[in-house]
């Protein structure tokens, strides 16, 4: 070897090392965090695979593993618990046909003999991905992701950045896709129907200095009590979804019973929210309610309202913009607070901004009233919404419609500032509606009309309607 050649090789080696070192260091860091290291890939199927049960495959794999499930029906309740499963992917092998890989909760049991509650429950797992799968008939939820110790002051944040993608969930008793106490996360490109509460739920989001938004995007939800709900949900970005034929389209709320009050700092944008007139209180409804309602008032149950696109129930800093909201027989959106029973008055609707929404399809498929507001809280505003019609203020026109529904930003004088609303027509209207007895009689105050065609969708109404409407 001549000297020039040797120097050239040495130089090349040094260059190579210079480039290689950061990469190796990066890989080491990633491995240390458990992100970069590739995990096992195993396959589950009914016949001819090493694993016949998804739970057994989960138990035998570790971080960043991939569990591929072949078509078939799996009657089990899978529990994935702890950081040893961080980065796990559980996926069906039929990307274009997620219904072919079905978890069915009917008669499904845990190993201890108890009834399986969920198709998959992820507890304290970071980066858990569930995709190309279906789940139906579970007594609790389809896919349930949670932090085991979500409470004020908890800094462990063990449920983080989950993904639920390309799933079909149906007729799970409470929720189809449910996240509790988690940070970030995505529920996307999924279809969801038949729940007694919500198709998609994000609740008890821990407060964060640098918030990681939870994405609820490109989903389709129909025939549920609600398409999306979230008690004490924060940092949620709900966009490009089609939510229709539910009792309510979207309803964030605030409750004492769960940590991290209040719900807030979220966005609802560019969704189609329409025809949410499912009167699930009627006997012939394809779904029942599993919700206990909004509480009790003088011994009477305060039922969830129906026939509404979006209900903001005691929330702080939500922006509703650029949505198409139409064909609701009660209200397009409703904003009110919890005047009874919230310790510390955390459930006051504040800074709820309604901007540039296309309401009532420009008069072609109207909401009975585009907006309802009880006059509580402060900073709530309405601006640039097309085809707007408001539930008017009281008989004495105090406050006036302009005062009750101010443009953005709302003047300091707008709203009562507290949890109690305007004690005129709004409150009477709201109380009368949620205390309707029987609750199916909510429909008695609807303004119904046929819907014009919208894309591929078909409107659904429970028939017959209520038979006991007061004259």
């Amino acid at each position, binding site marked *: 070897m001549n000297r020039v050649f040797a120097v050239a090789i040495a130089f090349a080696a040094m260059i190579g090392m210079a480039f290689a070192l950061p990469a190796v260091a990066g890989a080491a860091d990633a491995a240390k965090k458990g992100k970069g290291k590739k995990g096992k890939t195993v396959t589950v199927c009914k016949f001819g695979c090493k694993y016949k049960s998804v739970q057994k495959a989960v138990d035998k794999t570790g971080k960043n593993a991939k569990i591929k499930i072949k078509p078939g029906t799996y009657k089990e309740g899978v*529990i994935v618990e702890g950081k040893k499963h961080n980065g796990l992917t559980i996926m069906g092998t039929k990307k274009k046909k997620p219904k072919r890989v079905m978890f069915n909760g009917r008669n499904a049991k*845990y190993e*201890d*003999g*108890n*009834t399986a*509650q969920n198709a998959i*429950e992820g*507890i304290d797992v970071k980066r858990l991905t569930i995709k190309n799968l279906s789940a139906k008939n579970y*007594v*609790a*939820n389809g896919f*349930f992701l*949670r932090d*085991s*110790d*979500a*409470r004020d002051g908890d800094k462990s944040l063990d449920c983080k950045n989950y993904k639920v993608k390309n799933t079909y969930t149906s007729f799970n*008793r*409470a929720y189809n896709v449910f996240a*509790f106490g988690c940070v970030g996360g995505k529920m996307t490109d999924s279809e969801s129907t038949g729940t*007694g*509460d919500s198709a998609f739920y994000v609740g*008890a989001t821990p407060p964060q200095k640098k918030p990681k938004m939870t994405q609820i995007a490109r989903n389709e939800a129909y025939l549920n009590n609600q398409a999306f709900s979230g008690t004490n949900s924060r940092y949620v970005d709900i966009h490009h979804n089609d939510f229709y034929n539910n009792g309510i389209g979207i309803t964030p709320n605030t409750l*004492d*019973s*769960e*940590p991290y009050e209040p719900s807030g700092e979220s966005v609802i944008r560019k969704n189609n929210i329409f025809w949410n007139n499912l009167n699930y209180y009627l006997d012939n409804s394809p779904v029942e309610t*599993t*919700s*206990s309602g909004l509480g009790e008032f003088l011994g009477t149950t305060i039922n969830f309202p129906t026939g509404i696109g979006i209900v903001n129930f005691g929330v702080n800093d939500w922006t509703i913009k650029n949505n198409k909201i139409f064909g609701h027989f009660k209200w397009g959106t409703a904003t009110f607070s919890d005047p009874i029973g919230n310790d510390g008055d955390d459930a006051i609707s504040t800074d709820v901004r309604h901007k540039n929404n296309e309401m009532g399809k420009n008069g072609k498929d109207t909401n009975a009233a585009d907006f309802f507001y009880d006059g509580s809280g402060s900073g709530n505003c309405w601006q640039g919404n097309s085809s707007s019609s408001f539930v008017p203020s009281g008989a004495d026109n105090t406050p006036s419609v302009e005062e009750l529904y101010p443009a953005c930003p709302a003047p300091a004088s707008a709203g009562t500032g507290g949890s109690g609303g305007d004690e005129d027509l709004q409150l009477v209207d709201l109380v009368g509606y949620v205390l309707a007895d029987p609750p199916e009689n909510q429909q008695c105050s609807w303004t119904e009309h046929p819907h014009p065609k919208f894309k591929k969708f078909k409107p659904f109404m429970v028939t017959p309607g209520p038979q006991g409407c007061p004259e």
Partner: protein
Amino acid sequence: MSPRRLSTALLAAIAGLALAVAVPSGVLAGPGSGSGPSAEVAKKKTPKKKIKVGDDFFAPADTKVKKGTKVKWKWLDSNFNPHNVTLKKGPKKLKKKQKRKLKSGTATIDFKFAAKLKKPGRYKFVCTIHSTVMKQTIKVKK
């Protein structure tokens, strides 16, 4: 004693020993602990306490039981929300392993959880989903 009887007796002795080793001294947890004739005899002697797990409460929320009582939690069919039974604080002498066993799965309906509380003292349980309102104290007497 015939060889067959001897082997049966040996088997029974081994099984008894295995059971004695398998059951932790402080706590026995699980939905279906105990079966067979000898377990039935034990069952008759073991005091029991039933607790309802509802939306969003334990009933009774506070109770006193004798040492060694088998506490059985049952989730109500009328529930809408998910709940669990999780020990937040137990008697000082309770070992970590035993504490870990005092944690049920999270469930909505059609679910049971049982634990035998052998160490005297106060056991404070919560549902971690509704920890602000679902609290329970069981005082185990000597």
